[in-house]
C-alpha cells in the first residue's frame, strides 16, 4: 500500500513535469485520488519536484479543499453564507447530522463521509446548496438531504444525485449538473450571441496598439469590482520589459452573493476565451491562464472541451487564424477553496503553486506578475466585454451606461426577493429600479458588492449602480425588515475572520476585534463609545492592511454603522457605573473554583 502511494504520487508529479510551480495541480490530484495529502505523500512530492517538505505543507495547509488528514470518500460541503442561512440551511444541516451520525468537521468511522461547512459556493440564487465532492446540489431541504445520503450509500457515486438537470449547458453531458442558470435579463454585451472567431478576426486585422486603443475608447473598466481601466492595464503590461507575457482570467468569484461568472462559464465560455485571446494579442502574451475556483470544478471538463474545439478551429494555438507569430493558448488552473485568491496577487501566487498569499505591490503584476512575467489579470466579465467591443465597436459600447461607467453589468441578485438570478443591466440603473426587477418590494437593506461592498438602506435606493456612485463587482443581496443589519454585518465579519490569510496584523487581529465588539453590542452589552471604537478600528483595518481583502473587510461594520446607526443606537446604553458589562466575573472564576476546590467568597452570589 505504502509503495503504491509512493509510486502513484511520483507518477502524478511526473505527469506535471515534476514542476514545483504546478504544485496546485499535483496536490489536488493527490487529494482527489487518496482523499488526503498525507505526510508521506508530501515528502514524496517535495523530493520529486526538488522542493522542500515545508513548501508542500504550506500549500496543503492553506487551502480548505486540501487536507493532511484523511477525508471521507464523499465530502459534503454545505454552504453557510447568510443567504443559505435565511433559506433554512440549519434544517438541512440537522438532517445531514442525523443521517450520518456526525457533526460538521467530522468524518464517519467507515471513512465514507465527511461533513463540512463552506463559505459561499456561488449558488445563492438556489440556496441552500452544497458540494458533494465536485458536484453541486441545490435547493436543499431536510428531505433531500436524507435522500442524498441514501443515494450515496446505495449507488456509491455522486453522479446519481443529478436526476434533474439544470437549464442550458447545465444539461450538457460534460457538465451534468442540476444547477440552474437563472438568467433573468439578457443584455446586448454578455448574453448576446457571437460566432466564435469573429471578434478575434476583427482584432487581428488591427495592430495590437489599435486594439488597446479601442478598449480605451470604449472606456471599459474592470468588472471585478475595483473598476480599473482595462485598456490602461493592458498598455502597462504591453509596455513592460520582457518578451514573454501572461493573460490571467480571474474566475475565482468567491465574494459571497456573487454567481454571475458561473453563468458566463456555463453559457458564454466562447465569448470569454475570445476575449482572453484578444488580450493575448493586445499585450503580446503567449500564455493564458483561467483560474477557476475550486467550487466550479464541475464545469472544468466542459470548459476543456470548448478549449479543445477552439484549438481545432485554430482560435488557439500557433499562428492563430493564420496570423504568423501570434501564438496563444489557455490552460485552466484550479483553485482549492480560498477566498483570498480572488485578490489578483494572491491568485498569481496560487497559479505559481504557492500558498494564496498576496504579494507586495509595487511591483504591480503588469510589471512583474506570474513567474515574474508581466501579467494582466482581468475578470471573466471584462474579457466578455472586450470581445463584444471588438465585434461591435467601441462607440457602440460606450453609448451604453453612464459617462464614467460604460456598457452593461452583470448583477447576481439573491436574498429576500421573488426573482433571484443574474441580470445584465445597463450601468446607471438605480437601486430601486433594480429591486423592482428582482421583485423585492420590502427591501430594508441591500448589500451591494458582497461583504466587501456596502450595506445601504432606503435613503440610498435612489442612487445609481455605477463606478462613481454605488460600485459593485456584481453581488447584490437583499434583506427585508425581518433582518437585523448588525447580524448581517456580523455574518460578514465571521467570513472575513475565516478567510483572512493571517499575514498582516490589522486584518488578522483587527477583524477579530471588530467581530467581538459587534457581538457585545448585539448581546446588549455595548456602550455608545463602542460605536466610535468600531469606526476607528474599522478605519485602521482599512488603511493599514496589506491587500484588498483587509482594505475592504471592515466595510460591513463601517457601512452598516453609517447607514443603520439607529439600529446600533437602539442596542447600546451608557455605562454609568463604569463597570464593563462584557466582563462576567462568574464565568471568569468558574475554572478556578473547580481547580482550587472552593467557591468564591468575594463573589458569593
Amino acid at each position: 500500500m505504502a509503495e503504491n502511494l509512493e509510486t502513484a504520487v511520483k507518477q502524478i508529479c511526473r505527469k506535471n513535469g515534476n514542476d514545483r510551480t504546478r504544485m496546485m495541480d499535483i496536490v489536488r490530484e493527490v487529494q482527489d485520488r487518496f482523499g488526503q495529502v498525507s505526510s508521506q505523500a508530501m515528502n514524496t512530492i517535495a523530493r520529486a519536484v526538488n522542493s522542500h517538505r515545508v513548501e508542500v505543507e504550506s500549500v496543503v495547509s492553506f487551502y480548505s479543499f486540501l487536507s493532511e488528514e484523511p477525508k471521507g470518500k464523499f465530502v459534503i460541503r454545505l454552504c453557510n453564507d447568510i443567504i443559505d442561512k435565511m433559506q433554512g440551511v440549519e434544517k438541512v444541516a440537522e438532517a445531514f447530522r442525523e443521517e450520518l451520525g456526525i457533526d460538521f468537521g467530522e468524518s464517519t468511522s467507515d471513512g465514507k463521509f465527511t461533513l463540512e461547512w463552506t463559505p459561499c459556493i456561488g449558488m445563492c440564487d438556489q440556496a441552500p446548496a452544497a458540494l458533494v465532492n465536485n458536484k453541486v446540489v441545490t435547493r436543499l431541504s431536510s428531505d433531500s438531504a436524507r435522500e442524498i445520503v441514501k443515494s450515496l450509500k446505495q449507488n456509491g457515486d455522486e453522479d446519481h444525485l443529478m436526476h434533474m438537470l439544470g437549464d442550458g449547458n447545465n444539461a450538457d453531458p460534460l457538465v451534468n449538473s442540476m444547477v440552474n442558470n437563472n438568467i433573468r435579463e439578457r443584455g446586448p454585451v454578455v448574453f448576446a450571441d457571437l460566432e466564435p472567431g469573429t471578434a478575434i478576426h476583427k482584432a487581428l486585422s488591427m495592430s495590437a496598439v489599435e486594439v488597446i486603443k479601442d478598449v480605451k475608447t470604449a472606456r471599459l473598466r474592470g468588472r471585478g469590482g475595483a473598476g480599473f481601466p482595462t485598456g490602461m492595464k493592458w498598455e502597462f503590461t504591453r509596455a513592460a520589459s520582457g518578451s514573454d507575457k501572461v493573460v490571467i482570467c480571474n474566475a475565482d468569484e468567491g465574494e459571497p452573493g456573487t454567481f454571475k461568472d458561473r453563468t458566463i462559464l456555463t453559457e458564454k465560455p466562447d465569448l470569454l476565451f475570445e476575449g482572453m485571446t484578444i488580450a493575448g494579442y493586445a499585450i503580446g502574451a503567449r500564455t493564458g491562464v483561467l483560474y477557476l475556483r475550486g467550487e466550479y470544478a464541475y464545469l472544468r471538463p466542459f470548459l476543456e472541451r470548448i478549449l479543445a474545439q477552439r484549438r481545432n478551429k485554430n482560435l488557439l494555438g500557433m499562428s492563430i487564424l493564420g496570423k504568423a507569430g501570434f501564438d496563444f493558448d489557455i490552460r485552466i488552473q484550479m483553485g482549492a477553496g480560498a477566498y483570498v485568491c480572488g485578490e489578483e496577487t494572491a491568485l498569481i501566487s496560487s497559479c505559481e503553486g504557492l500558498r494564496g498569499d498576496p504579494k507586495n505591490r509595487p511591483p504591480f503584476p503588469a510589471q512583474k506578475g506570474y513567474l515574474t512575467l508581466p501579467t494582466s489579470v482581468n475578470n471573466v466579465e471584462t474579457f466578455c466585454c472586450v470581445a463584444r467591443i471588438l465585434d461591435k465597436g467601441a462607440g457602440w459600447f460606450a453609448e451604453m451606461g453612464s459617462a464614467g461607467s460604460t456598457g452593461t453589468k452583470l448583477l447576481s441578485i439573491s436574498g429576500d426577493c421573488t426573482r433571484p438570478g443574474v441580470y445584465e443591466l445597463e450601468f446607471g440603473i438605480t437601486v430601486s429600479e433594480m429591486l423592482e426587477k428582482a421583485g423585492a418590494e420590502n427591501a430594508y437593506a441591500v448589500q451591494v458588492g458582497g461583504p466587501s461592498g456596502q450595506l445601504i438602506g432606503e435613503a440610498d435606493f435612489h442612487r445609481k449602480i455605477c463606478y462613481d456612485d454605488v460600485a459593485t463587482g456584481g453581488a447584490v443581496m437583499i434583506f427585508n425588515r425581518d433582518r437585523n443589519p448588525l447580524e448581517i454585518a456580523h455574518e460578514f465579519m465571521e467570513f472575513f475572520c475565516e478567510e483572512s490569510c493571517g499575514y498582516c496584523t490589522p486584518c488578522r487581529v483587527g477583524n477579530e476585534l471588530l467581530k467581538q465588539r459587534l457581538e457585545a453590542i448585539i448581546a446588549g452589552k455595548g456602550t455608545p463609545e463602542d460605536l466610535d471604537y468600531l469606526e476607528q478600528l474599522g478605519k485602521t483595518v482599512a488603511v493599514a492592511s496589506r491587500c484588498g481583502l483587509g482594505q475592504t473587510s471592515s466595510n460591513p461594520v463601517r457601512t452598516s454603522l453609517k447607514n443603520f446607526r439607529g439600529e446600533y443606537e437602539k442596542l447600546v446604553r451608557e455605562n454609568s457605573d463604569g463597570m464593563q458589562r462584557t466582563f462576567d466575573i462568574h464565568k471568569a472564576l468558574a475554572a478556578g473554583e473547580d481547580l482550587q476546590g472552593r467557591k468564591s467568597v468575594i463573589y458569593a452570589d
Partner: protein
Amino acid sequence: MAKPKIATASLAGCFGCHMSLLDIDDRILKLVELVDFDKSPVDDIKKFTGRCAVGLIEGGCCNEENVHNLQYFRENCDILISVGECAIMGGIPAMRNNIPLKECLDEAYLNGPTVYNPSGKIPGDKELPLILDRVYPCHEVVKMDYHLPGCPPPADLLWQALVALLENKPMDLPYEVIKYD
C-alpha cells in the same frame, strides 16, 4: 481648597511602575504639594478615605482580588489610568492566556520538576484569591479613562501626565518619553 487626592494600586504587576513613579526624584516634593495620597502602597492606606481625583492602576487582573480592587477603584476615582503594559494588555502574566488553566496549575503545583507537594492538591485556601480563567487587561473589567504605555512608563511620562491632568493643561510629550525601542 483641599488638594486633590490620588490613589494607586498594583494588581497583577511587579511594582515596577510604582518604582518608576518614585523615579521622579526630587519632584516628589512638588508632587506632595500638588496632591494628597489616598489608598496606595506608597502610604499603606488600605481603604479609601474619600473620593479621589485620579487612580493609577499598575497590572492587569489575574485573580478575583484584582477584580474586586479595580472595581473598588472605579467606584472611588473620577479618572482611572492604566499605567504600563500589564494594566493595558496583561503583560507578562498574560503569557499564560494561551495555556489552559489546568495545565498551568498542574505544572506549578503538581508536575513541575521542582515541586514538593505531598498533598497532591492545588492550593485552595480561602486566604488565597481564586485565579481567573485568564489574565484580563483593566479596560476589559472596568472603564479606563487613559492609558500610559511603557514597561515601565518612564518617570517623566508619569510626571507629565499627572501634572497636566491636575493642572488641566495639555500634555507635553516629547518623543523621548513615548518611544520604547
